[in-house]
């Protein structure tokens, strides 16, 4: 069964990481001191919290991605059957892509694609 193969690979991955971690823990040399437990920031002590609000640009791209990625979900079935459908499929996808392209152009015009 196909899905079983998937599970096998999943378990294999888990086994690889867990096993290697285990072996590493087993054979590695261990030492401890407070400095070693500090975050590494080129030798400077870290200032302020790390989990802060990030620049909105990142999220903006995430939102854009969300939209365009879902659009791929629609294009995939279309692409698969395109050969069988022909003209109608072509016209419809042109409409689809024109709207999508307009959306991209709009985002472009509005400066959503500009990294500030």
């Amino acid at each position, binding site marked *: *069964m*196909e899905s*079983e*193969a*998937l599970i*096998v*690979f999943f*378990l*294999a*991955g*888990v*086994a*690889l*990481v867990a096993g*290697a*971690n285990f*072996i*590493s823990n087993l*054979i*590695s*040399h*261990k*030492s401890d001191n407070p400095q*070693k*437990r*500090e*975050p*590494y*920031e*080129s030798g400077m002590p*870290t200032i302020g919290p*790390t*989990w802060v609000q990030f620049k909105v*640009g*990142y999220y903006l*791209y*995430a939102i854009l*991605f969300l939209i*365009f*990625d879902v659009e*791929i979900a629609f*294009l*995939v079935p279309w*692409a*698969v*059957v*395109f*050969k*069988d459908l022909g*003209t109608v499929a*072509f016209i419809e*996808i*042109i409409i689809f*892509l024109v709207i*999508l*392209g307009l959306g*991209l152009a709009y985002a*472009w015009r509005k400066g959503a*694609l500009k*990294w500030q």
Partner: protein
Amino acid sequence: MNTSLSITENIQDWLLTIMPASAASITAMALIAVAYLTFFALAGLFLVLMERKVAARFQLRLGPNRVGYYGLLQTLADALKLVSKELTGTVKADKFLYNLAPYFVIITALMGLAVIPFSGSIQAFDINIGIFFLIAISSVGVIGILLAGWGSNNKFAMIGAMRSGVQTISYELSVGLSLLTMILLTGSLQLSEIVAIQKDGWLIVQGHIPALIAFMIYMIAGTAETNRAPFDLVEAESELGAGFHTEYSGMKFAYFFLAEFINMFIIAAIAVTIFFGAWLSPFGITDSLPWLGVFWFLGKTLVIVFLMMWFRWTFPRLRIDQLLTLEWKYLLPLNLMNIVLMALIVWLNLTIQF
């Protein structure tokens, strides 16, 4: 087991003779898993070595040459060193996420490998939505990177992870769309079928101009997907230490390293599968010898991998705004137009048929 590994069938038959059916199938699966894990590790080691050698050659150096014959065992030694190193981590880290991250990257890489058709018979997982599965699984990988960055609670790691996130999701669009362009030609998502269609000619030839464009986009986007130079500002050493895996040491660092190279391999393998006929030999010169398919496949893949290594030493690293501009303002519109072009060509039957 639907996996059409011909070796397995023999082994499976043999297994069935010595134990009950369910135990036999479990054992068979375990064997497959072991085989792929071995390949996974070996490929990783080899690619690292290759990278270093290629890099050395580009820089008129010799590269690793002490350990083993021509330094062939260098990476194995490195691996052993990594295993024996202590697994450190900061006190401030979010322990659970920090430890979870490697699982994500490794498992996704491994699953990606599962659908690659190494030859007509060596393909663990021939799902009917193969390409879709690949696109899907490769977007899970980015979660691992984000978790690593977040879980480390380190500013470099965090910035690296955020950059990686925005870069990966951006270029994922192009990867998906360029593969979609080729799906228009194949009419199928199943990798084995896609290979079958290329019997008479590679898709890059069948689809000529748009396929060529798609290939170029795919290569650029694929390189960016794997966070390789010139798109490696995720782990830009000069800025961010080691980027998202700054806080990982020893084996845990090795996972990311390994996954990166395997991902590179997967990207190349997909390129070979979609554009260059996978394990099919050019002009059918070795059609009579199907077992040669594996070597054709690996050979082609290594050529593509070499190409990606070549990029690294040819182009300077991009700034993040350039990176995003390249994707959103050039590749994406180009890709959309390319799809229309491809659709037009398929619709008007202008593909090159043999």
